[in-house]
């Protein structure tokens, strides 16, 4: 099972997520999570998880850029000249 599939299973089942917090090895065993994916999840580094997931989901450079666009400064008065700012 890929990391993406594993996380989607947890996302769809809060009880399973709760069980994972108590018994991570057992849940990972039951779902067949691979060793490399376990190590990544165990390390808990968000950017590394994101890179792995994007790779698994075949998120291309353009799509990744679109997700980054969400993060640009987005408050409305920044679009306007100072005199127009509400």
């Amino acid at each position, binding site marked *: 099972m890929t990391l*993406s599939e594993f*996380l*989607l299973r*947890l*996302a*769809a089942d*809060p009880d399973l*997520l709760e069980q*994972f*917090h108590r018994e*991570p090895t057992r849940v990972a065993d039951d779902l067949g999570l691979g060793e490399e994916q376990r190590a990544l*999840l165990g390390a*808990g*580094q*968000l*950017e590394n*998880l*994101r890179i792995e*997931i*994007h790779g698994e*989901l075949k*998120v291309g*450079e*353009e*799509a*990744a*850029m*679109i*997700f*980054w*666009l*969400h*993060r*640009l*400064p*987005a*408050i*409305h*008065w*920044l*679009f306007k000249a100072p005199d127009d*700012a509400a």
Partner: protein
Amino acid sequence: MARGALTVVGTGIRIGVQLTPESRAAVDAADELLYVNAEPLGDHWLASLHPRARSLASLYRPGVSREQVYEAIVEAILEPVRAGARICAAFYGHPGVFVRPSHEAVARARAEGHDARMLPAVSAEDCLFADLGVDPALDGCASYDATGFLARPRPVDTTAALVLWQVAAVLEPHAVAAGSHGGNLDVLAARLLELYSPQHEVVLYEASPFPAAPALVERLPLAALPEARPTPQATLYLPPAGTGAAA
């Protein structure tokens, strides 16, 4: 024009498990689910919630102005509402926090005579309070977009906590290549060093969008901020002056 209905919901930050029962009911009751999400994995989860689920992410395009993107999102939401459909529009986090098209869609739908409402959800700031052990009522807490904080200078009460959003994109008008974000942190740090000591401990924080993964919490002295390499989604938390960063 047919009378439609719009419910705007938030999916929370952590994929799957922060959608409230109230919002889930709104998703289930809708004729169509339209969504804007920040993680490709979240797209997969959202697409599984409704047989007619459609991402609006394609409306974001490099080189297209934010005003145009937001107008396109609002109109994409309202078009089926005007046709009489019951639409649920989902945004990540809280749909009313740092989300302009959601407010605009609700306001415009109401003005046109449709039923429209927004339901509350878990915001990134809610996650920050939980993960960092911060009670905003204790000393007070001010919260700004990082670019807005610099673009519109205002008095800062350093005895209260300060939360600056989107620090990795501070003063960035356009998308940048992966790994190139955070290039203007020196400008932000210079402003903050007028207010706080160089040793003041600050926190680069990112709420985890992934079930079973912890939040990112990086503590550093303010003086080290220009050299920091925050994740694109990072938030900067400054505890009140005279205190350490919370647990």
